[in-house]
């Protein structure tokens, strides 16, 4: 695993976070970038562009999926807490009963807030899933869902 990772020499940034929902078959269903100012995001990426930071986040989160796959068969709790690390970035994971993975990329260590955030999103996710017109693997495009996820993030990661 470490051989696959690009090496980056860089210092800390504050409050940068990305959240992603990936289905059981590794299909991305939802993604949300929050918390970063443009300057902070630009400062983290080597080329200084916000896009690079976003790509890096996606890469790190997908790489973490291997660890999630292992962890989820070792415990019957949904909240897997911290599953992987990349430089200053921490990856937290939550697995639902149906195998959907919630991944949170954050640079701050606060398991309590992460747990509450995952709990909120899980309830929102269940409501979307119960809609018989929603295909289980389809992307979640509901605007209200997106709004509530962002509100929950603001509440738990001030």
């Amino acid at each position, binding site marked *: 695993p470490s051989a696959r990772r690009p090496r980056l020499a860089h210092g800390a940034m504050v409050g940068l976070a990305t959240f992603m929902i990936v289905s059981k078959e590794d299909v991305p269903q939802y993604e949300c970038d929050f918390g970063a100012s443009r300057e902070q995001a630009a400062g983290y990426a080597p080329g200084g562009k916000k896009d690079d930071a976003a790509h890096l986040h996606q890469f790190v989160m997908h790489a973490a999926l291997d660890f999630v796959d292992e962890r989820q068969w070792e415990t019957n709790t949904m909240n897997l807490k911290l599953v992987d690390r990349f430089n200053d970035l921490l990856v937290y994971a939550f697995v*639902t*009963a*149906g195998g959907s993975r919630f991944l949170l990329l954050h640079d701050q260590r606060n398991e309590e807030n992460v747990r509450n955030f995952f709990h909120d999103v*899980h*309830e929102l996710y269940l409501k*979307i*899933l119960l809609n018989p017109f929603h295909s*289980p693997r389809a992307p979640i495009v509901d605007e*209200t869902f997106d709004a509530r996820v962002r509100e929950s993030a603001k509440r738990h990661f001030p």
Partner: protein
Amino acid sequence: ARRARAMQRQGQTPSIVDRPLPKGRSEVSLSAFSFLFSELVQYHRTRASSIAELEQKLSEAGEGVGSRMLEVLAHREKSNRREIRLQGILQFINTNVWRCLFGKVADSLEIYNDDEYVLGDKSLVVNRYISVPKDLGDLNCGAFAAGVVKGVLRDAGFPAEVSAYYAEVDGQRTPKTNILMKFAPEVLEREKRLGA
């Protein structure tokens, strides 16, 4: 939920995301369900070219129910515990899923082979008011329930071939419905790896 009530007062329909999760205490009348189910069977009967295809369509309809049941019941009844062992998921289906859908737990759960388990129900609700005409031969509308089980098993990570068949029972006029689950090899390998 507060937001939902505020919107309703203003005459707007709140988004599904703002309404509270159902508590699962509501019931549907048997006649309403039987009517809807019979319509479902008749709809697919005219469009399927074989009995196998008809059962396949019923099974697919059930899978959507199963995958949602798994998620909701794990949250509502099992305080967010996931099943990672075969016995666990079988008990979950036997007890939680059956009780939520049919109002009672399944009648039996037996093992036939290493990879084959059978769930039995003496009077499966979906079959109770179905009479199969001769020209449809082997058709078992319990395929819908088999689909529910298949959806639960697949999403929980225990993929299996699931089918429903009738079995005569001594002393009972109507046959019981058995749901046969044949698990994929990776399930058995993982069970072995996780230990006896």
